[in-house]
């Protein structure tokens, strides 16, 4: 009788572990599956401007929170400038942006000074930065 006790114990333990490992139909529910895209989405409920107004500046389909835009550095150009790598998938600014009001090409680097958000505004659901958001920081004098 005394020798059976540990045996029974071991058997019970094996059984419970086996039960725990048995195929549970709901098991896949706590496995991570492919997650749907959840990044900040463009707000498509409101048509982007160019559709309505061919001369309008297209709205910005991504977050621009905190983007530096002053006379030292313009972050927009790191992706939309001419030297930006095409793999980023950001369209380069049109030639119009490099011309002055007489249609002459601006001198090198002048596009840096363009205040992009004077014409382009983000149109985002959720996390877009409204104009004048404190996160864009103080403007350089």
């Amino acid at each position, binding site marked *: 009788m005394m020798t059976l006790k540990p045996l029974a114990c071991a058997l019970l333990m094996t059984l419970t572990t086996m039960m725990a490992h048995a195929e549970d139909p709901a098991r896949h529910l706590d496995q991570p599956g*492919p997650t749907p895209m959840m990044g900040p989405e463009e707000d498509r409920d409101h048509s982007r401007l160019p559709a309505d107004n061919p001369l309008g500046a297209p709205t910005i389909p*991504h977050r621009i929170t905190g983007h530096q835009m002053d006379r*030292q*550095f313009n972050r927009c150009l790191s*992706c939309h400038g001419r030297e930006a790598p095409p793999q980023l998938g950001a369209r380069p600014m049109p030639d119009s942006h490099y011309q002055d009001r007489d249609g002459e090409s601006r001198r090198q680097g002048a596009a840096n000074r363009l205040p992009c958000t004077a014409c382009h505004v983000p149109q985002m659901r959720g996390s877009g930065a409204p104009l004048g958001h404190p*996160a864009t*920081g103080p403007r350089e004098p």
Partner: protein
Amino acid sequence: MRRWLSRYWHIFRSPSLHFSLGFLVLGGFISGIIFWGGFNTAMEYTNTESFCISCHEMQDNVYAELKYTVHYHNRSGVRATCSDCHVPHEWTNKMGRKMEASKEVWGKIFGTINTPEKFADKRLEMAEREWRRLKANDSLECRNCHEFEYMDFSRQTPVAQRMHEKAFSGDIEATCIDCHKGIAHRLPDMSGVPLWPDGEP
């Protein structure tokens, strides 16, 4: 002089008459702890943000700018302080950085960046040193908090997703700072400084 020295040497070497060996060992042990602790407390203080911004050079420019970035103020309320990004956490690296920091005390005395103009003039040079450091340690400080491995790319913006996948899979040789300059402070005039890694991402 020699005699004087050798007399002290003798006292120093001869066994203690008044204190037991045990007492001496224990006493040495305890005072060791106290000194070591004091040393570490001092080290810890120099890691705090209030220490860093006790110099107006650090407060007026870089700190003021940091306040507008995601690393200071964000949805989740987790933030990075100066030393999270600027002082390596490992002890050996830490001492190395502290030695370098003495240069800053020197700079303070001689006012290398004590006006906004001087700061602006010197900014690129200082930034370049930081980029070099982060490049050399594979952006160790960033990776103390962020790792590709735990990023859910599918929750990132499409550009971020594409770039991170390439960097993570080793398609391109790049570390965080190759693509994320100006993450915590404003950038100086960047003409001539690559904003993306060599050979394009």
